[in-house]
């Protein structure tokens, strides 16, 4: 066995025996950083959902009536539905660009558990869509004359809820990434799964307006998030394998 050959095989064996634990952390962190730099360079993708959110909120007073009392009653549900639709808007592009240029295929071939890498991508989506929506919602709450005292609860429930929205939505995005016009199908798949999160999210804001405990609603939102965190990554990994390898 010529000396050169053993060196090459040793490197490979070294790579595999060497600390898989930190190897995974390095890979997840690198994927996170890569997507953040990428989205930082294409600010349009980050801003579009936010402008869509503001636009949808503007349509309702014009469509229904600018009367503050009426708006105040529908404001919590309205803000939550609009935030949910805006999060849905940017889901389609979650895996699409990676699918088109072949880096999704390479992601599947990485020697690391795919659910963890999928989680990194979903985390980026939440950081750049869910969180900004949650921070922007109170401002739009003012336009809908949302009663005082519920602004913080609105932001907290949206931040917590949008995390599970991203996780659940990513499953749909992974399933439809292979299809050329997957956008509409994605929303049909994912919206029914969003209903529990919507119920307890809007419920939390409603409860904080009426003054009684919104903590119960937040607890359930947290439970939904924990459930999604446990199950969604594996579903995303399976869906990606199905989409890529046909």
């Amino acid at each position, binding site marked *: 066995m010529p000396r050169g050959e053993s060196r090459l095989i040793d490197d490979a064996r070294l790579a595999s025996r060497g600390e898989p634990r930190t190897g995974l952390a390095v890979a997840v962190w690198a994927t996170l950083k890569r997507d953040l730099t990428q989205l930082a360079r294409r*600010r*349009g993708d980050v*801003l*579009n959902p936010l*402008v869509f959110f*503001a*636009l949808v909120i*503007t349509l309702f*007073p*014009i469509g229904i*009536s*600018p*009367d*503050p009392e009426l708006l105040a009653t529908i404001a919590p549900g309205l803000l939550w539905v609009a935030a949910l639709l805006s999060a849905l808007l940017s889901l389609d592009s979650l895996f699409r660009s990676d699918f088109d240029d072949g880096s999704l295929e390479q992601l599947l071939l990485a020697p690391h558990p795919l659910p963890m890498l999928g989680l990194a991508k979903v985390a980026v989506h939440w950081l750049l869509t869910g969180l900004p929506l949650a921070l922007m919602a109170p401002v739009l709450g*003012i*336009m809908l*004359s949302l009663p005082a005292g519920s602004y913080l609860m609105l932001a907290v429930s949206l931040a917590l809820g949008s995390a599970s929205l991203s996780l659940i939505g990513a499953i749909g995005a992974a399933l439809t990434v292979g299809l050329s016009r997957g956008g509409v199908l994605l929303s049909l798949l994912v919206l029914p799964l969003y209903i529990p999160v919507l119920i307890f999210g809007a419920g939390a804001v409603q409860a904080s307006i009426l003054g009684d405990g919104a903590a119960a609603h937040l607890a359930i939102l947290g439970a939904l998030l924990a459930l999604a965190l446990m199950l969604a990554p594996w579903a995303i990994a399976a869906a990606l394998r199905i989409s890529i390898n046909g």
Partner: protein
Amino acid sequence: MWSFIHKLGSPKWFYGISARLMPWFWVAAAVLIAVGSVWGLAFAPADYQQGNSFRIIYVHVPAAFLAQSIFVSMAVAGVVFMVWKIKVADMAAAMMAPLGAAMTFIALFSGAVWGVPTWGTWWMWDARLTSMLILLFLYLGVIALRGAFTSRDSASRAASVLAMVGVINIPIIKYSVDWWYTLHQPASFTITSRPAMPTEMWLPLLIMVLGFYSFFIALTLMRTRSEILRRESSKRWVRELAVEER
């Protein structure tokens, strides 16, 4: 006349001529805005009904005027670019859009703040403010569309078409919103339909408007020059310029 348009169209010639014009506009803008501000804030009489919050008019009205005229000039530049293929016009249109959006935001914010003492809330679905909000969305649409294309040429054409479509819709939006507003709030006080103002009130306003317009022209000239360098960077005259002006 014809050769003049094409001469104006050549970036190199425009770059030269604008260098001479720009300082004048900067000086005019600075003087007019300074004089207008001091006069409007300190010397003009307070409004008998609204007291001193009326002084916001010296910022709100110029910004509102500019917001609309920047969109119109963007559309005109779009027509010039599409019909006579003058690239400088498109460069100017590209550089105007963000300033237009900023002016619309200023008009929106100052209008809302102005209404707080009278309405008691930070936002009121008033006819003028709603049209201004929709104008802001039009601006964001044009900016987002221009940023979404990879090839600069199609981006310019698409943004010009959208600007033209938008400018036609501005009056339509304005009248429909006014009609919607009177439908829901027939007899209520709108801040900006005012009886004729005494001279010592509207004179500083005129100066501020002129100041804002010269600011707009100066800034657009400056940013268009940068855009010329960016787009013509492969041309020899730009490379020589780059080496000279270390």
